[in-house]
């Protein structure tokens, strides 16, 4: 069988393109090398849906960020995704920084960002009492939002699957060639796929994937790491809005970002590195994050820190997003250099790839059966009293509390294991249900989650991965089975 479209990379970019394509009559497949969707940049970022105040006017980033921001409101309706409409402040401490606020006020207006204005320190402090005393003015960016990024990617893929997408994970593309107007794409495990188009959405690996197909890749990826602290959701109330410092040449700077579930992220710094997959943290890096956050709020409750992590931005030598058909290989579409605001722009990137590139070459018929609606798996703890009663009557596993920190039951976890894109690793369950995302970081529930995954999928517990491929926690059984 020959697909019409083969997408490489199951991050938010590939997911958005895949979903957009299922709105048309076409055979589409999405390949992902990891054991789950959204395991790279899509699960290690600030989770902000930026307003669009930052990119240079006229750039693709500006265009797609502002449009993407609006599309998230549509996705909230259609895909039932978490969206926290909390707004943001960019803070200034002195005359010079206030001039920077003016500049971004102008830029935001030029980019078409609604509602932006400059507030005095007193007004800002009434809204955010923990702002540092030295703040003199803030730029208010009310359309800034926060989402739960991997859930968005997974939701897009699940909805696309409902509408005909084929999604295959653990498929690392390592060979691409084109004969008779058809691409042959092979993966490391020996599978072969044929497709008329190849869409490269491989994030920080985009240049490597492109190099499988063309000799002179027109961009280089210059991976850029960002490190974070994660404060427990019990800090809720410390901060409502996302806080940005005034940007420098190095980027947006260290931010403080209240998350949908109440946690606060502090970061990221910006460190260039060669490797696209080095997500290690360092003492020096985290110290620089702390130093940056000192410009934002006072008395940061670091004693509530539950985790540190890092993500890698797929920045490119091109600067702007590089989204266009290859000049060397027809029907090969580069979607590269998708660093920030890639998450914000993703829904618009999906549209742009289909409407501005593919539809220029193809006349695809709309998929009349396309259903844009997907419902999220509602957690027991989020249900009303009557819903709880009803749910428990149907399935008494809702009565077994597995993760006490985030109040997740066996009934919830089983449903996340059984999803279209299943949570079949310990972190996969954590990403979907938040079991293990709390204070004790899985110390109490990890063994139970592991047993549930094994039970539901008919595996041995030694076959259950923690995160990436072949990362099982249990190595061997010591006793004879009872």
């Amino acid at each position, binding site marked *: 069988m020959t697909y019409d479209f083969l997408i490489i990379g199951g991050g938010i970019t590939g997911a958005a393109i895949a979903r957009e394509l299922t709105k048309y009559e076409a055979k589409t497949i999405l390949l992902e090398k990891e054991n789950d969707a959204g395991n790279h940049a899509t699960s290690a970022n600030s989770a902000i849906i930026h307003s669009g105040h930052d990119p240079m006017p006229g750039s693709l980033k500006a265009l797609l960020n502002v449009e993407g921001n609006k599309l998230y409101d549509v996705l909230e309706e259609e895909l039932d995704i978490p969206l926290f409409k909390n707004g943001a402040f960019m803070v200034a401490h002195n005359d010079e920084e206030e001039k920077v606020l003016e500049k971004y006020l102008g830029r935001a207006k030029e980019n078409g960002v609604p509602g932006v204005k400059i507030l005095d320190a007193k007004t800002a402090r009434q809204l955010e009492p923990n702002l540092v005393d030295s703040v003199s003015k803030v730029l208010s960016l009310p359309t800034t939002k926060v989402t739960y990024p991997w859930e968005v990617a997974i939701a897009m893929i699940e909805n696309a699957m409902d509408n005909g997408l084929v999604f295959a994970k653990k498929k690392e593309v390592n060979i691409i060639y084109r004969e008779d107007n058809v691409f042959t794409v092979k993966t490391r495990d020996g599978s072969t796929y044929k497709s008329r188009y190849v869409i490269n959405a491989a994030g920080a690996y985009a240049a490597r994937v492109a190099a499988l197909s063309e000799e002179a890749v027109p961009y280089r990826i210059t991976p850029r790491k960002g490190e974070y602290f994660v404060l427990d959701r019990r800090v809720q109330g410390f901060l409502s809005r996302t806080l940005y410092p005034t940007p420098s040449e190095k980027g947006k700077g260290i931010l403080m970002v209240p998350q949908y579930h109440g946690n606060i992220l502090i970061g990221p710094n910006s460190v260039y590195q060669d490797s696209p997959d080095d997500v290690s943290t360092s003492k020096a890096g*985290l110290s620089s994050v702390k130093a940056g956050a000192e410009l934002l709020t006072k008395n940061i409750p670091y004693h509530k820190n539950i985790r540190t992590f890092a993500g890698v931005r797929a920045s490119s030598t091109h600067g702007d997003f590089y989204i266009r058909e290859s000049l060397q290989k027809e029907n090969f579409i580069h979607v590269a250099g998708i660093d920030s605001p890639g998450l914000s722009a993703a829904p618009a990137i999906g549209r742009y790839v289909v409407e501005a590139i593919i539809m220029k070459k193809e006349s695809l018929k709309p998929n009349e059966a396309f259903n844009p609606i997907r419902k999220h798996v509602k957690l027991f703890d989020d249900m009303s009293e009557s819903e709880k009663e009803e749910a428990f009557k149907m399935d008494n596993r809702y*009565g077994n509390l597995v993760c006490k920190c985030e109040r997740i039951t066996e009934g919830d976890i089983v449903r996340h294991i059984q999803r279209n894109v299943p949570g079949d690793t310990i972190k996969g369950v954590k990403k979907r249900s938040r079991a293990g995302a*709390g204070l004790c970081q899985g110390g109490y529930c990890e063994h139970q989650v592991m047993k549930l995954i094994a039970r539901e999928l008919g595996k041995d517990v030694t076959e259950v991965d923690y995160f990436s491929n072949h990362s099982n926690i249990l190595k061997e059984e010591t006793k004879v089975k009872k």
Partner: protein
Amino acid sequence: MKPYDIVIIGGGAGGVAALKSAYDESLRILLIERDKTLGGILKQCIHNGFGLHHYKEELTGPEYAERGIREIEGLGADVLVDTTVMDVNKENGRFSINVINTDKGAFTLESKAVILSSGCYERTSGAIQLPGDRPAGIMPAGSAQRYLNIDGYLVGRKVFILGSGDIGLIMARRMRLEGADVLGVAELMPHSNGLTRNIVQCLHDFDIPLYLSHTVTDIRGESVLEGITISEVDEQFNAIEGSEKHFEVDTLLLSVGLIPDIGMFDSLKFDISPKTNGAIVDHTYQTSIEGLFACGNALHVHDLVDFVTEEATKAGKQAKDYILKNKKRSHNTIDLTPKGNISYLLPQKLDMGDAFEEVTVSFRTTTNAMTGKFHVYQGDTLLFTKKAKFIVPAEMEKLTIKRDQLINKDPINIEFEVINV
């Protein structure tokens, strides 16, 4: 449903002892445990060394638990296992306790008094900001202990341990006995954080090196742990360049601290000590909320179960008196606060309205010493001094203050004077 007089949350050694002493035929008492059986953390502690104080003999953890359970079996108090307390609130002088189980789903119970004995959880790699990669193979020692002793699975074959807490030491020996290579234990402090007997029996007897003033400064491994680097630290705990040692391991166990597991009771908003991370209590083990008692590892982390039993027995008795004698707390209190070389005192308050004759104060020092003296002050006045030997921060100390030794309302301080290091 008729309200309970006392609900005890958590059926480990603490909850079981609290039930035994709180029990009275005229009271409605309920013990709630989320696991299928009572016993708590003891069930996975299959080594011996339990009960030397309380039972005057050496038992394993499960044996110790079994004894306690047998002592409450005939009582006729209600015990609800496989049931988790989700949260607790207090309104109009009553506690409402939201629980969940697979029999009835989510429901609410009422009680006049509550005893928190929900144990503790282990500090994680994220909380201590371990640098480097975050592969599989890094876990709290107690989790590995559970996988090994309860589930029967080994988590790795080449092991390093960060932190010299007791669970880490016990697991060093346990993994070695199971055939794993245990390459060492690194401890940030210049002294061990575990009981002396565990250092001797778990490390020395098995030639497992203990690296004091060392910490893990790098972790490598893409999907599973491949290796770690440890470095010596200076007095400010900064890594000393050039002191790095590399180990190829597939497992890093963390024994870097235990924290009272009371996050589920946040909505009660009782006062919490930043030192113990548990409730602030008076000598009746009552928290800042009247009728709410705490004991065991949910109050402060204990190294010996015998002391948990002792403390929980007192807390249970106090809860019983609170109900039966309708005891009200007075606002006539004296604070107990740590002074030099002491990290915390417990209880943190004396309720002088209560007719007590003496009170046992538990505390930990911040340094170790061969010999030293504990000085007990009230205000600026020295009340008495007690000599002490072989003092280590890992071992909880106790001393008794008699009511008639007190001279006024000033705070009581305890100070540790080191004589011989």
